[in-house]
């Protein structure tokens, strides 16, 4: 109980810190200047419907906008839409769109443009990875220039939350039609910044869009620079060649806090880090072995060492700030129970359980070090894990193989529930319809009861009923030990003291929309 209180207090404090930094500054903002943001990876594509990673989302969200947005506090609020109504049967959604909005190329944003975008995502030929977010939508109609109507094949509770996903951004139909495949290199949206250039592997530059419909940006320009190594990125920030550095190594926080510039901020994140087991293949088709590993790994020690206490040990498959979260009983560190489960399954120190453990390097905070910690902790109970790592693109492709070709035994991954709604975090990862190559259930988990609960929660509108369904589904998932549950990350960002008004969104986005540089 005491520990729970400490954890809660930490969360409250860190989020409070995050918001206070974003609050209105005392001095009047100055206009102009270039903000340089150091990121870990380059953009994968600049087509707002085709990317899957949050570093690209950070860039895109300066240029494109969605019908709804998730505020940093976790509220779904209108952006390019103004309001919506739902028919009594819960299947027809009518949206009133914001008038007098133009894309950067002068095209008018209206219901026809919105329909074009949603149809493009829904069209299987586009191969939009986030199609599943709106795959219940069967009909998109532009009623008049500011009225859009969506019809779903069943009541679909998370629709508004899903429309906040930046993978459903509104992009200029004229530009998409005119440029074809080249569009992915010169995106056109409605956001406060417009695209200027993309130097592959080095930087993406956006400049202020002066005809923006809303509150105009203060900065002239934002540059997103690629510096893959966490240490090198921090060094560049300290040397003053960056204004913002994402993913500061947590163990450096204490040292940085001793100085005045740069400032370290810790913001909440919607990302959960886990190790998924392929439950259809030996050895981890045996639930006892999955549970044994859960007992063998001291997650608290990992969080305290590699992450310097900035993360929160998982007590559910989703992060606590996701709508639908409730804590479920998971596995406390208990090497005796791990050993007895291993014995039951026929393993011992003399005949150790051997498995190959795939993990990424440099994608999540201290991922390789965490993998090595897991290896070391598993070794104590007589589980021999062989570590394998790959470049992230190749790694993702490997985990996405269909079942017959997928011989991965266990792999580490992170999932940011960026819509802030449990459906996105649970349906995509645990529903049996989401096995690769279609979806993200890459451990091939299948539990009929869980499927049923996730399906029902999708079409239930009452939030408290949904929460109960999710709670039961998560309890079953934990009981099945579908994952080795690890932690939910916090974002550790280094910022130069001159930077004001910067928002670090829990969806892992650095937002410079209203940022400015103090002179």
């Amino acid at each position, binding site marked *: 109980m005491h520990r729970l209180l400490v954890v809660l207090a930490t969360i409250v404090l860190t989020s409070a810190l995050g918001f206070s930094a974003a609050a209105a500054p005392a001095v009047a903002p100055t206009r102009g200047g270039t903000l340089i943001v150091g990121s870990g990876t380059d953009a994968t594509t600049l087509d707002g419907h085709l990317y899957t990673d949050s570093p690209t989302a950070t860039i895109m969200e300066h240029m494109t906008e969605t019908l709804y947005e998730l505020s940093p506090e976790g509220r779904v609020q209108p952006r390019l839409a103004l309001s919506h109504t739902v028919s009594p049967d819960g299947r027809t959604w009518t949206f009133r769109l914001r008038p007098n909005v133009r894309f950067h190329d002068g095209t008018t944003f209206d219901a026809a443009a919105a329909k074009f975008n949603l149809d493009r995502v829904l069209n299987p030929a586009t191969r939009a990875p986030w199609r599943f977010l709106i795959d219940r939508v069967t009909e998109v109609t532009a009623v008049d220039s500011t009225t859009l109507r969506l019809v779903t094949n069943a009541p679909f509770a998370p629709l508004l939350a899903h429309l906040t996903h930046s993978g459903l951004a509104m992009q200029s139909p004229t530009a998409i039609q005119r440029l074809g495949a080249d569009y992915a290199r010169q995106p056109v949206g409605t956001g406060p910044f417009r695209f200027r250039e993309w130097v592959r592997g080095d930087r993406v530059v956006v400049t202020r869009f002066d005809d923006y419909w809303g509150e105009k940006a203060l900065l002239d320009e934002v540059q997103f620079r690629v510096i893959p190594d*966490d*240490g090198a990125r921090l060094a560049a920030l300290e040397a003053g060649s960056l204004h913002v550095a994402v993913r500061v*190594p947590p*163990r*450096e926080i204490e*040292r940085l806090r001793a100085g005045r510039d740069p400032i370290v901020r810790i913001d909440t994140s919607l990302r959960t880090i886990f190790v998924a087991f392929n439950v259809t293949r030996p050895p981890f088709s045996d639930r006892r072995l999955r549970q044994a590993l859960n007992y063998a790994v*001291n997650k608290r*020690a*990992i969080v*305290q*060492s*590699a992450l310097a206490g900035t993360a929160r040990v998982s007590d559910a498959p989703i992060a606590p700030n996701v709508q639908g979260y409730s804590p479920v009983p998971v596995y406390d560190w208990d090497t005796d129970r791990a050993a007895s489960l291993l014995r039951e399954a026929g393993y011992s120190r003399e005949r150790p359980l051997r498995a190959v453990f795939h993990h990424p*390097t440099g994608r999540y905070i201290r991922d*390789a*070090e965490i*993998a*090595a*910690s897991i*290896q*070391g*902790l598993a*070794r*104590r109970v007589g589980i021999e894990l*062989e*570590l*394998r*790592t790959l470049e992230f693109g190749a790694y993702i492709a490997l985990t996405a193989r269909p079942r017959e070709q997928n011989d991965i035994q266990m792999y580490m991954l992170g999932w940011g529930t960026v819509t802030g709604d449990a459906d996105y975090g649970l349906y995509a990862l645990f529903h049996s319809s989401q096995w690769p190559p279609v979806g993200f259930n890459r451990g091939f988990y299948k539990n009929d009861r869980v499927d049923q609960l996730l399906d029902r929660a999708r079409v239930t509108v009452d939030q408290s009923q949904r929460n109960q369904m999710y709670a039961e589904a998560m309890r079953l998932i934990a009981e099945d030990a579908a994952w080795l549950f690890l932690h939910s990350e916090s974002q550790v960002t280094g910022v130069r003291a001159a930077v004001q008004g910067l928002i670090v969104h829990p969806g892992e986005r650095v937002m410079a929309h209203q940022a400015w540089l103090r002179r």
Partner: protein
Amino acid sequence: MLSSIRASTTAEARRPSRSRWRLIWNQFRRSRAGLVGLSILLVFLLAGVLAPILAPYDPYEIDLEASLRGPGGGHWLGRDELGRDLLSRIIYGARLSLVIGVIAVAIGAAFGVPVGALSGYLGGRVDLFTQRAIDVMLAFPGILLAIVLVAILGVGLVQVMVAVGIVSIPVYARLVRGQVLSLREQEFVDAARALGATDTRIIWRHVLPNTVAVIIVQSTLQVASAILSAAALGFLGLGAQPPAAEWGSMLSNARQYIRLAPHSVTFPGLAIMLTVLGFNLVGDAVRDALDPRMRL
């Protein structure tokens, strides 16, 4: 029959005899640097061979609560990012590094020497083709070629030994070819040929034994660069995989924490530096000892 015996004695006379080895040792002893190098190598060799006895802790036992702690409390060199004892890991690392170095060089010599000998002895088209192939290999910087080879062979310790070994093939091939080119013009080779010895016999019995001295010198220096290449591959994550106590990968894992825990980077770095230095000092001294012009 009689003449063939005579021919081989001619060649044997040019092979280093026991008294010659003594002469070389006497010469080597005069080099202070060489002796320093030799003692460094002996220390690491002993550490490597006796690792299970010498290492104070299990090099793989992690202790997350004590991660990155500096020297002290029974851990003479401190602990790494997972709380493992650094001294024990460096001692076990000596074993790995020396094995990698020696095996890689053995692979290089095993292929490079015959290729060079054949190429030099046979001459003509064989020489032309092998030498162009070797030119191609030499055109790549060694570490780049090793990375390409690891990419083809896959990541791991054995693969690193093979890759670094392949990289040193052209070095041996060039060196031996040069030696053979000058040796094959010598009278004792003509004599052997006149007596009807086969090419294989001439190369094996008469020519190669005379290149042993240069091969030894080259190998001592080559072990140093093989250890360095293997450490570089380990640093890039292409060599020994965790939890192996390989110096290069220890450096790589600890470099994030260079400012927080300088000891975790310094000691593996020192270990690499000292071993490479040791081999280089010994190599230089051996070369001097074997060089007739240096003999007083």
